[in-house]
């Protein structure tokens, strides 16, 4: 069994470390600091923390004002609220106005599983991805989070950083060296590429291992930056393996699968199977069980990979 570690705790600690080295970082919360562990930053830097109350539209615009006072605001609320209730502010001031605001989308995907579909974020990536100038980063585990968060602070312009609520499998060690905008080949392979993001990266690795027992040599490509997509790596995988599977904790519409399909259909059409939640809402329940039940199990990746390989061979 892979070791599990808390993404929230990693986030709080990473924020504090960032606050130590970057005095311009300020943290805002719409009353979620105990939920996403940004309270750790408040304890360390009370003068650089603002709780705006439960007011997400105000949260985003206040962060915009702070950005234009020379600060680097990290705004915290649930991922679905950035992508829905506060979306107009995100579009107008972050994306059109290019305000240097970082959106920390907590409880993303279905990681707030027990609170149910009202609190799940399964369309946030699609919504954010449609906006010009937005950058979308999804850390795969606590190590990735720790390595990527300082890069988010240094990245020019708005970033949507998608945070998992739960304990998740630890995938990486200290040798992991992600850079925003660059996909990482975690496992070589020639027959099919499993392109994963977030928690689904670990499930892609498990699936690749299982596929090798079936004689299918699967490559695993980790895409932690959904936008700007590392098109070169994706097209390289399409050319070299001839079949693709995408896997994400998100609707199959408009997220990683959509981004990959758009890139590949333009330049190198190959069979693509998209693993994610179908065009529906999930339900309340245990996190890993809901993932499995709604299309995001290792088995779903295996089936998709076999189909993609068969489709390539059938051409």
């Amino acid at each position, binding site marked *: 069994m892979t070791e599990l570690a808390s993404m929230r705790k990693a986030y709080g600690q990473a924020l504090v470390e960032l606050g130590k080295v970057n005095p311009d970082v*300020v943290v805002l919360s719409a009353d979620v600091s105990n939920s996403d562990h940004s309270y750790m930053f408040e304890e360390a830097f009370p003068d650089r923390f603002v709780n705006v109350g439960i007011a997400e539209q105000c949260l985003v615009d206040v962060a915009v004002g702070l950005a234009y006072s020379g600060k680097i605001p990290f705004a915290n609320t649930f991922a679905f609220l950035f992508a829905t209730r506060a979306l107009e502010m995100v579009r107008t001031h972050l994306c059109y106005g290019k305000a240097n605001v970082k959106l920390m989308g907590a409880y993303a995907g279905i990681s707030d599983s027990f609170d149910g579909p009202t609190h799940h974020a399964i369309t946030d990536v699609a919504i954010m991805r449609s906006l010009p100038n937005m950058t979308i980063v999804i850390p795969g585990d606590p190590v990735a989070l720790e390595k990527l968060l300082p890069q988010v602070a240094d990245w020019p312009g708005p970033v949507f950083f998608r945070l998992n609520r739960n304990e998740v499998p630890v995938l990486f060690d200290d040798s992991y060296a992600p850079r925003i905008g660059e996909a990482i080949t975690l496992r070589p392979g020639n027959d099919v590429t499993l392109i994963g993001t977030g928690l689904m990266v670990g499930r892609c690795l498990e699936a690749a291992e299982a596929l090798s027992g079936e004689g299918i040599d699967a490559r695993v490509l980790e895409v932690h930056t959904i936008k700007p997509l590392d098109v070169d790596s994706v097209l390289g995988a399409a050319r070299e393996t001839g079949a693709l599977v995408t896997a994400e904790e998100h609707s199959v519409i408009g997220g990683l699968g959509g981004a990959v399909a758009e890139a590949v259909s333009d330049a190198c059409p190959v069979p693509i199977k998209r693993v994610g939640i179908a065009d529906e809402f999930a339900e309340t329940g245990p996190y890993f069980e809901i993932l499995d039940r709604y299309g995001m199990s290792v088995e779903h990746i295996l089936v998709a990979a076999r189909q993609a390989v068969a489709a390539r061979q059938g051409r």
Partner: protein
Amino acid sequence: MADPALIEKLETIANRLRRHVIKMTHAAGSGHPGGSLSAADMVAALYFHELRVDPRRPDWPDRDRFIMSKGHACPVWYAALAERGYFPVEDLVKLRHVSSHLQGHPDMRKTPGVDMTAGPLGNGLSAGVGMALGARITGRDFRTYVMVGEGDQQEGCTWEAAMMAGFHKLGNLTLLIDYNRSQVDGKSDDILCLDPLADKWRSFNWAVRQIDGHDLGQILDALAWARDVTDAPTAILAHTVKGKGVSFMEDRHEWHGKAPNTGQAIAALAELGEEWQP
């Protein structure tokens, strides 16, 4: 009481801004003259007396900030910025033209002196709260001014920001309410009445003063009062007339978002003391 010579000077400037608004919207063939004319006197007082700004350094970190949350009234803002020297006055008639830096609604990435992109109503006060908090956090003494109209105050986000500013006692934040009681579809009193408006702001822990928004003496006094209030955000509730200065536009919501044709522009400018031919 404000200096009579200063008042006279600002009245002259406000009149010049109004003339620009007519010529700009006429040249554009679209735009928002009504709300621009109602705001002209306050904008003149801000840019030619109150604001600590330097047109040679639009990015000066210690400058006072101005946000026109009712972004559709940008013609009068652009006119003030040009007259103040941020960019050539000749640019003004390029409003809404392709390749012009003067967009249909204010764009801080394109127009020197514009401190906040605006247009979708209700955003300005929240952004202003962020700037005022930013001044506090960075230890800078600049002040932030936000102008709103009826529409901004019908948007919920404004009241989120109002609550926050009152709670944090943002004495470095001043709201100017251009209360002309007119919006796109008609009278705000008929559509979604804001009254009792002063009481609303007071109940959110703001200090409020009501003035005639076309009386430059009252405007200057209110701005001086706002500067002296340090333990609460200040709201200047300015009673104004939409289309002020042009008789056939005054208090007519039809002039919210319609440009004058050539005959109307000639007539309007004549009322503003300028013989003009296109």
